[in-house]
């Protein structure tokens, strides 16, 4: 397998674009990534497009607007991990020598559903009984708060931190600061979760161009190396699973650290899947940033803020940057690329050399999560 590098990254600000088509939302992100990479359009040999609800042939619809056609285009669905899965598949293809340079796209338009909770697959038994994603995360939160030292203030602090980071990110959907009091007074969604504990619904797109690391020099710029790529499905468990520890992330992180030959202490920043405030706290532990039961202490002591020991979600994360679900995986990678290049202004993690992205997807009964993909990058 060859080493793989990211040459270009681009995204559009996450937000609400009901008047635009999926292709109209996405092409500026793709164009920005290609221009950022200095890879001539004609040298792009394949495209991987992740979207969960974007409909058939999203990749073709997007790429024809830029005249990038007549090449293999793979459209990939894996719920919220659609584009992190697309990135993983693109990485495999380049690492294996099948292609030298490819573009990876993540895109979603959720405004077409008119708001509310994410539409899940009705064939699923629990979904048919009214399970919605906020309720699932809320039950995780309730049980964690019962077993460990975690309060509503801890949950609120995650949302406050997300906005503090997001205010400095021009691509973030929620850039206004909030307070613990405002979070605790926001509309209840599924107890103990309130509106500000939940990522906003919206639209967006992100893209990266990757190539074989051995060819990176000819395009100039500073390539960001992919030093680890991991994906897993959850384990189907009909029995009593521990909902306070996301098994798929614990398992995936262990595999990834071993593959990359580094540990959590070597990670300078992480973009994690904080679809709900409780999720970010569970992932501090699952990714090895702190021991079990200490997530509340980490947020209390500011360890995961920019300037702290291990900044988490400097982009604002899903809570502030937004979560157009299929776009999220690549958007996390865009943030890590910018951080490792030192392009992030007031939210810059100083001296960042290693970054991690973590993207899950759920909504199927019996699984902790249906899918989880984790990547490590270095400059």
């Amino acid at each position, binding site marked *: 397998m060859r080493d793989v590098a990211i040459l270009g990254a681009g995204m559009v600000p996450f937000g609400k674009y009901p008047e635009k088509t999926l292709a109209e939302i996405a092409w500026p992100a793709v164009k920005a990534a290609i221009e950022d990479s200095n890879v001539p359009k004609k040298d792009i040999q394949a495209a991987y497009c992740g979207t969960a609800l974007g409909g058939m042939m999203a990749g073709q619809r997007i790429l024809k607007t830029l005249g990038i056609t007549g090449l293999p285009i793979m459209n990939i669905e894996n719920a919220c991990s659609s584009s992190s899965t697309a990135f993983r598949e693109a990485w495999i293809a380049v690492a294996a020598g099948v292609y030298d340079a490819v573009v990876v796209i993540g895109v979603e338009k959720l405004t077409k559903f008119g708001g*509310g*909770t994410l539409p899940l697959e*009705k*064939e*699923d*038994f*629990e*979904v*048919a*009984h*009214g*399970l*919605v994603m*906020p*309720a699932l995360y*809320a*039950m*995780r*939160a*309730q*049980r964690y708060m*019962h077993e460990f030292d975690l309060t509503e203030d801890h949950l609120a602090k995650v949302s406050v931190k997300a906005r503090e980071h997001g205010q400095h990110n021009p691509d973030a959907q929620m850039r206004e600061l909030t307070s613990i009091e405002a979070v605790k007074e926001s*509309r*209840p*969604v*599924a*107890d*103990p*979760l309130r509106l500000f504990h939940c990522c906003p619904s919206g639209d967006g797109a992100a893209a990266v161009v990757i190539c074989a690391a051995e060819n990176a020099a000819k395009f100039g710029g500073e390539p960001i190396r992919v030093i680890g790529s991991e994906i897993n499905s959850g384990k*189907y468990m*009909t*029995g*009593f*699973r521990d*909902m306070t520890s996301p098994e798929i992330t614990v398992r995936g992180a262990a595999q990834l650290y071993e593959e990359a030959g580094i540990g959590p202490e070597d990670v300078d920043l992480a973009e994690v899947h904080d679809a709900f405030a409780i999720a970010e706290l569970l992932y501090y532990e699952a990714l090895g940033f702190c021991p079990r039961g200490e997530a509340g202490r980490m947020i209390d002591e500011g360890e995961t803020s920019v300037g702290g020991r291990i900044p988490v979600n400097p982009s604002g994360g899903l809570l502030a940057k937004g979560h157009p679900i299929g776009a999220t995986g690549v958007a996390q990678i865009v943030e890590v690329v910018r951080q490792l290049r030192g392009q992030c202004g007031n939210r810059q993690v100083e001296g960042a050399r290693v970054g991690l992205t973590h993207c899950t997807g759920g909504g199927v*009964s019996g699984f902790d999560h249906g899918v989880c993909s984790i990547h490590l990058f270095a400059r």
Partner: protein
Amino acid sequence: MTDTAEELKQALNIAGDALAEKPDGTVRLIGTECADCGHRVFPPTPVCPECMSENVSRIELSETGTLYSWSAVRIAPRDWKTPFIAGYVDMPEGVRVFAHMVDIDPEALSFDMNVRVCKSELGAESDGTPIESYSFVPVEEKS
């Protein structure tokens, strides 16, 4: 146009009814047990997810289980009565069941409390058709 009652019926009927009504008016959940490896699942399935055997038989789950976690859900797709209480109930047979908790305030629930299966109306279609399924109520503690 959503049709929650029909979707629920289809989901319950993936491999036969998941709910049995007893002569005394109480109800029981139905799961399946693999005759080859003993693995149990709810809802019933035609194939064992552990060993892929199709030699499975229907089993009646106990009337009561314990509440692992819950949440009072205030925002849900239309047709559901909101707020409703979503919960996970651990059954003595070793399976965890997602269910609505009914006839109780969320403040009165506690972790690992005993709950009893019942059948109730969980919502209604826009045309008034009731959405019925299994649910759980707290077991009244004898003092």
